Structures are given as structure tokens and as C-alpha cells.
């Protein structure tokens, strides 16, 4: 590795993706600069980076979305490059413009390319021009709900309301009929305004039995582009991806080539450079329809890395450094299969409600074919201020079944204590007969999942026994009023903790 310490990369993000980018940059020999909010002062990405600078209080809009402060840190730390990650400023053309104006280089496309694709209405037009097949939809909608109702009648229900500047599954709502459409219009518009700073919305026909299949592309600054195969991301809830896999079991090689070439054509048409993902819906007949183009590194990029052997972050850095792509399309040769499960702090049994609080203990899966990208550490809080996705578990196998069984093995190893996660939900999904058969589509969870499927009566029975014994011990006075771990510093157990980190309830492990 050639050290390139004059390449000073500021990572304008947090969580698992910040750590992922730091690792890629270090492998390239670049100097890494982290930013952190007050809540993240001891976060993993801060500890990994060569240097780290505070950018403000815990709420994201005062820290990770504080453009002035981040640019100030970039100047003070003599950064030469900025990687936005995903979320936050990753698809914000104003930020990208200011990066460029400050004489810094963004690891990503130009502000114009982000603008062109960030506006989903403009993106549809560009896709149409590049002869990429489109789902029927409306132009931007005025405030009058009747206009939306008219378009929906023409397009046919069910329809999706989409924020023109939305992304990552946020700012979308499915409406089965006119009643749902009327009640969801203002909600979606409000969410769009608050989350994306622009409340333009439009509607599209919703394809219910469709698969979500996306193409990863890389384009250099010299007019070359390649596609790195597809990722199927059909297992979603509230339009947010939970499981991604590659390859897509039903994608015909001819369709893959057609989609890949359309994706690269669209990118080159708009003068795009760096990594991007072009998303499609695949209907029941296997026909692809353009959804949108994401002008950033995707959450689910690791599965592409697992099968292609290409480090996408390092590729991004080299592209931004002006290097031409080192491969032709023929040299991109994915091997085997990979699956990613997003590990989210949420209670799947209670409507996927986000969870927060301190993580007391964690045991992460290891072993052959397993990759863990995580953003939490035991002893630290999972904060209400940020995304509830706290990690990504990725497995590789020679084929899908090997990747799937390996994922189940890894999920069995995955333990987070203190905060409820969706590990059990992921175990349910990966072992569902329809998932095993490859019958995946975007409404999979709505159609197959019921909260009671995650019930664990075996654990409840044992908890009942433990509680009875605990009360008995207390009654017997074997160790005074209550042998709390907080008071047993003279305990004979050398491993007994000195202080309970559990705030609300007192932890008890004494003898």
C-alpha cells in the first residue's frame, strides 16, 4: 500500500457507515477525519479515525446536519476530500456545492447530477430519455387533493405517494383506495417538508407483487461505466429494506444485461461519476421498471463486495482521485451468493417500534463467510436521535442456500442485551418457506408476518421460574434485603460488576 497521507478524508457521517468508510480509506492509505455530536464522543467511528472533531449537540440537525460547522471542521482539519456516506448530506446538492466552493473534493457525483436524480420527477424524465422503462405516474401534485385523486383514477389503484426529494424508503405511502389517498396526502407532504426540505410529492402506480431489484454501477471521470450485478431488496417494511441478497433468484441473464446497460447509459447520459445505484421494480413477468437512481453509496453495498471482490469504498476514493476504472464490463464476474440482514433496534412484535437505550452486552457472530458492519458498542447508548439501524450482518456462500443457512447460524450467535433488536425477526424471515423458495416480493412482510409468530413461550416459562426463585431468595434473606450488584463490591465473585449500568430498574446478580 502506498501511503497517501496528503489525502485527508473527512467523513461527514456517523454509525456503521462512518466506520466502514474509515476502514476503506485506511486501506487506501488515506488520512481519516471523523466528526461527532456530543452523544457520539466515544462512538466507534470516533475511535477508529486518525482524528475526530465535535460538530454540535446530539440532535442531528444541530450536528451531522450542521453544514456551516462541518465545513469549518473541514477547513480547520485541512481536509482535502469529504465522504458523505448515506443519509444526512449524501444527496444534498447544496452541501456538495459548498464542498466544491471550499476547494474540497466530494467522494461522489457532482451537485448537478445529484440535483438531476434527487428530484424524482426530473429523474423519471432523464430515465425516459435514456430509454429506461418507467412505471406509470403523475407529475408533481398541487395542494388541491382532487388533482391527486384524478391522477390516481387514471393510473389505477393501488398507488404510492412519493416525496420528489425522498429516499431511503422515507417519504412514501401506499394507498389502496381514494380514502387512504386523501388521508395520506398531507401526512406525506408534511413528512417530505420536514425530512427533505421540499414538500413536492407525486404518485405512481404501486406494483404489489413486484420485486425490488437494483443495479450497482461505478463510473469514472473519463466517461467509463460498469455495472456490478444486482441486489434484490424485496424484504421491506414501511418501504425500508430489511434483507438484501445477490444474485436475484429469478433474474434472467438477458434481463440483467438489459438493466445493467440501461443503468450505465442513464448515468453516462447525465455526466455521472462515482458510485450509484439504479433501482428497478421487477413485475411478476420479470419485466423491470425504473424506480429511481441513488447517487450515493448504498447501505447494502457489502453484498456486492462479497460476490465481486471489489471494495466499493476504495473504488469510490480512486475514482475521486481521477483514476480510470481498472476493469472492463467483461472482467466483472460475481461469484457465489451473499445476503445482508439489517440489524435494527426495534420491536417487531409491537409494530416495529424503534428502541433506544444502553447496550449492556453484545455478542457478535463470527466465523467463515460472515461480515459484521456495526455502529454500536456495549456500554454505549443507542440514541433516539439517529437511525435505529445499528448494524448489518452479511454472509457469503457458494450458493444462496449456503449463504442463507450461514446467515441463520450467524443470527443464532447474534445477541444484544439491553435494547431489543430485530434479530429474531430476521431469523423468522430467513427460515420462512417462501423465502427459502425465493418467492420474495415487496409486500412479503405484510402478507406473511404476524407479530405472534415471534412469541417465545419457552422464555416466558423460564422467566416465570426465575422470578419465583428470585422472590424466594429475597424472602429467605440469604443475602440481606436484596443482593444487588451495585452493593456487592465485596462479593466473592471476581466477575461481579461493581455498578449496574441499568438506570430504570436495578440490576441484580448477587448471591
Amino acid at each position: 500500500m502506498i501511503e497517501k497521507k496528503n489525502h485527508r478524508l473527512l467523513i461527514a457521517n456517523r454509525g456503521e457507515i462512518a466506520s466502514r468508510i474509515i476502514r476503506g480509506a485506511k486501506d487506501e492509505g488515506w488520512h481519516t477525519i471523523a466528526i461527532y455530536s456530543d452523544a457520539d464522543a466515544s462512538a466507534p467511528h470516533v475511535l477508529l479515525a486518525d482524528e475526530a472533531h465535535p460538530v454540535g449537540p446530539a440532535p442531528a440537525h444541530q450536528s451531522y446536519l450542521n453544514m456551516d460547522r462541518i465545513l469549518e471542521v473541514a477547513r480547520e482539519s485541512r481536509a482535502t476530500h469529504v465522504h458523505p456516506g448515506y443519509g444526512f448530506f449524501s444527496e444534498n446538492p447544496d452541501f456538495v456545492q459548498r464542498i466544491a466552493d471550499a476547494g474540497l473534493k466530494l467522494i461522489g457525483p457532482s451537485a448537478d447530477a445529484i440535483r438531476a436524480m434527487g428530484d424524482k420527477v426530473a429523474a423519471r424524465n432523464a430515465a425516459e430519455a435514456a430509454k429506461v422503462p418507467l412505471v406509470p405516474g403523475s407529475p408533481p401534485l398541487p395542494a388541491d387533493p382532487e388533482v391527486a385523486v384524478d391522477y390516481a383514477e387514471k393510473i389505477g389503484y393501488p398507488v404510492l405517494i412519493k416525496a420528489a426529494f425522498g429516499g431511503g424508503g422515507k417519504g412514501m405511502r401506499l394507498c389502496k383506495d381514494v380514502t387512504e389517498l386523501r388521508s395520506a396526502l398531507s401526512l406525506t407532504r408534511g413528512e417530505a417538508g420536514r425530512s427533505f426540505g421540499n414538500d413536492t410529492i407525486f404518485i405512481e402506480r404501486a406494483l404489489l407483487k413486484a420485486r425490488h431489484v437494483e443495479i450497482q454501477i461505478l463510473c469514472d471521470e473519463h466517461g467509463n461505466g460498469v455495472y456490478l450485478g444486482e441486489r434484490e431488496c424485496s424484504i421491506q417494511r414501511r418501504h425500508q429494506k430489511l434483507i438484501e441478497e445477490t444474485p436475484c433468484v429469478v433474474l434472467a441473464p438477458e434481463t440483467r444485461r438489459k438493466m445493467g446497460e440501461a443503468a450505465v447509459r442513464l448515468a453516462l447520459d447525465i455526466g455521472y461519476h462515482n458510485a450509484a445505484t439504479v433501482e428497478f421494480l421487477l413485475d411478476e413477468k420479470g419485466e423491470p421498471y425504473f424506480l429511481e437512481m441513488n447517487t450515493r453509496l448504498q447501505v447494502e453495498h457489502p453484498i456486492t463486495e462479497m460476490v465481486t471482490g471489489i471494495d466499493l469504498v476504495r473504488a469510490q476514493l480512486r475514482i475521486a482521485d481521477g483514476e480510470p476504472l481498472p476493469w472492463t464490463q467483461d472482467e466483472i464476474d460475481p461469484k457465489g451468493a451473499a445476503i445482508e440482514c439489517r440489524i435494527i433496534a426495534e420491536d417487531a412484535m409491537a409494530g416495529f417500534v424503534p428502541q433506544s437505550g444502553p447496550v449492556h452486552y453484545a455478542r457478535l457472530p463470527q466465523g467463515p463467510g460472515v461480515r459484521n458492519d456495526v455502529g454500536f458498542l456495549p456500554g454505549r447508548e443507542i440514541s433516539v436521535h439517529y437511525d435505529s439501524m445499528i448494524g448489518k450482518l452479511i454472509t457469503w456462500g457458494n450458493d444462496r442456500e449456503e449463504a442463507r443457512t450461514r446467515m441463520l447460524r450467524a443470527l443464532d450467535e447474534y445477541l444484544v442485551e439491553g435494547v431489543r433488536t430485530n434479530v429474531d425477526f430476521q431469523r423468522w424471515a430467513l427460515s420462512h418457506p417462501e423465502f427459502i423458495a425465493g418467492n420474495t416480493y415487496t409486500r412479503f412482510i405484510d402478507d406473511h408476518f404476524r407479530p405472534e409468530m415471534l412469541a417465545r413461550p419457552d422464555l416466558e416459562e423460564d422467566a416465570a421460574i426465575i422470578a419465583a426463585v428470585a422472590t424466594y431468595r429475597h424472602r429467605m434473606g440469604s443475602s440481606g434485603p436484596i443482593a444487588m450488584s451495585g452493593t456487592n463490591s465485596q462479593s466473592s465473585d471476581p466477575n461481579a460488576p461493581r455498578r449496574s449500568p441499568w438506570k430504570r430498574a436495578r440490576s441484580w446478580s448477587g448471591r
Partner: protein
Amino acid sequence: MTDSRKYQRFVSRFGEEQRTFDVASGESSSFWVKRIETETTDEPIEVSWNPIGHGRVLFRIGGRVRIARIAQSTPQEFIVEMDGRQIPVRADDEITARALHQKAASGAASGPAKLLAPMPGTIVNVLIDEGESVAKGQPVIVIEAMKMQNEITAPIAGTIHGLKAGAGQAVEARALLCEIVP
């Protein structure tokens, strides 16, 4: 076979269910537990209790091994965390359990329902007014948490009372938003 151990009877309750156990002391850090059924009584099983540090306890329950974190909120109420699940459970001696049961039965008449914030977040919309009547399942308040808007619906039909929620206000999990009086 006669069992000469001195057992005490406890009732554990979790969710809507309850179990009755007889518990006696065993060797050093172990206990004997008999599950008491209405018709028959199970054979006692041995339950060993070994703290393993970091607030965690290794249990052997019959043949099963469980690692649990036990948090205690009152002398009788616990949250037992195992395998990533937090299970609230309460264990009382038999007499207390019976008294609680009677109290619960007499007070079970349909009272007002408290509408609590299911998660920490920011209230972005209050869809009802004080005194307004709502149908069961009607959206009442919208809370934005982790960038998602979540509609909070009325758990029962009734009238809104003591509305504490206002748009723009930050709320903690389980904060009282209002009551719905049937």
C-alpha cells in the same frame, strides 16, 4: 417418593398468564422448583443460580442453560432479559397473589384508557381536540421518531380528556398524551 424439603408457594405472572410454583432451597446456589398444576404436580426440577459478571446470571433450569439479566423494579417485579427479549414478570407469595387477583377482578370495570407515547419522539400533529369523541382505531396523534411519522390510534372508543400533547412538543417513551374515557 416423599420430598422432605420445605417448600414455599409463589405465583408468577407475565402478560395475561400465571404459573404457580413451590420453591425450596437446594445445595449452595441451587433451588428446587415444582410447578403446581390444577390437577397434578410436576416433579421438582433443580434450578442453579450463578452470577457470571456484567450483571448476568447463568441458570441451569432442569437440563436447560439460560443466561439472563435480571432487573428488579420493586421487590416483586422483575424484567428478565434472555436471548434478546425483555420479559416483565411479577412473583408474589400465594396470599399476596390471591389478594391482588381479587382487587384486580373488582376493579376491572371498564375505566379510562391512558394513551401513552409508544416511543420517544416529537409530536408533529394532534388530530383531535379536548372533549372530542373518537372511534376505536381512529388516528389521534402523530409522533415523529427516528425520521418516521407514526400515527397513534385510539385503543378504545370514547371522549378525549386531559389532552397534554401539543404539536412540536418532545415526548419521552410512555409519556401520557391524553386519556380516553369510554
